[in-house]
């Protein structure tokens, strides 16, 4: 398993035993997360952050940038960005408020965003982003036209500076709290699909494919 040497800002200093630097584990968290939070510095020097969708190919994270279009000029010019993904696996109930926590997996990526301009690469990103929404979907959905490719901005960040933090297990509490008359334990959480809602304009006789009816996240 290849490992990523932490830099001063990706080294997990708070609870360092939770730091994870193996690439394969970071990849798995990035793949399972449905969306990311993308941060950058605005023209005024203040922070900006938005939700957007991402997908990973090898050690590159692609981020759909059109949703940040008003400031994307700055991002496209190679300004630094931070990308955070978070998956909450459960709630950790301790007897004290102080020791309450979550079981979670997060990845933070720092890097310089570069716009995807190569047409072939851009078309490939459409496939992986579509599969990031619903694994298997790209083969069914119509691929983008030249006009659509021109209307869409993706930026990419290489996973050169990133770290994961993984918190799991039961609360650890001081002995005096173990005697309290308070329930303690883990409440697992997961994201589950409901019943697919067909488009009102759907042609009669078109049934939901298996990747919709039996939807699950990669790795979940």
């Amino acid at each position: 398993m290849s490992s990523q040497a932490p830099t001063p800002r990706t080294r997990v200093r708070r609870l360092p035993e939770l730091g994870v630097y193996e690439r394969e584990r970071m990849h798995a968290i990035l793949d399972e997360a449905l969306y990311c939070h993308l941060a950058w510095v605005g023209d005024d020097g203040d922070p900006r952050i938005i939700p957007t969708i991402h997908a990973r190919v090898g050690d590159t994270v692609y981020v759909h940038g059109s949703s940040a279009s008003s400031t994307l000029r700055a991002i496209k010019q190679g300004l630094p960005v931070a990308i955070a993904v978070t998956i909450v696996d459960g709630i950790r109930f301790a007897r004290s408020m102080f020791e309450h926590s979550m079981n979670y997996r997060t990845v933070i990526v720092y890097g310089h965003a570069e716009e995807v301009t190569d047409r072939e690469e851009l078309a490939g990103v459409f496939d992986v982003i579509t599969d990031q929404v619903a694994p298997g979907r790209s083969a069914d959905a119509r691929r983008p036209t030249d006009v659509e490719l021109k209307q869409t901005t993706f930026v990419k960040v290489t996973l050169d500076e990133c770290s994961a933090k993984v918190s799991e297990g039961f609360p650890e509490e001081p002995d005096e709290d173990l005697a309290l008359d308070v329930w303690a334990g883990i409440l697992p959480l997961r994201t589950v699909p409901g019943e697919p809602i067909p488009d009102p304009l759907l042609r009669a006789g078109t049934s939901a494919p298996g990747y919709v009816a039996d939807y699950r996240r990669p790795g979940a």
Partner: protein
Amino acid sequence: MSTAPSERTTVHRLPERADHDPATIHAVLDEALTCTVSWVDADGEPRALPTIQARIDDTLYLHGSRGARAWKAAAAGTELCVVATVVDELVLARSQFHHSMNYRSVVLFGRARELTDLDELHAGARAITNHVLPGRELDAREPDDAEWRQTLILAMPIDEASAKVRTGPPGDDERDLSLDVWAGTLPLRTVVGPAVPAPDLRASIDLPSYIPPSGEELPRP
């Protein structure tokens, strides 16, 4: 709170999705289990950190560790930008181009102050515990003096915020409607699994009623 957008809370991209209604903004901040806090570091670069939040009226409470550098900067009054996101449905269009999500997100700008008043600290701690799961704040032991010294709770006014909301079916082009591709939305929910008691839980303690049965949605404040 103000409902008029500032320059930076004006939604420029797809402005029809913008929502400055406080009720919408409050609901997203309550419903999202976590948020991500961003700030600009001393080196001028953006930083981001996921954390847990809670809301009382027009104040957002953020919980951090006193030792963490992120929270030192935040407590010192560094300009923050906080985002919270709830994904309601996946939007599967006939074209890859029109794939999307039905989501509700809030972006909040401002500075935070550290809570130092003991009453406010207690209220903040209860609000954060309530945000995790309503009802729990009545059960768990409140922090003692030593724990308060290690805990950092920040308060941020919710007065420069905007929500962005997408709802409804895919927005396919007319020419794609005849394609032989299923299209629609897929709702997503966060549900709880079976509660797992701590190995050191005393045998006489039953599962509290505020913890829902397996398969039910996680209750929100």
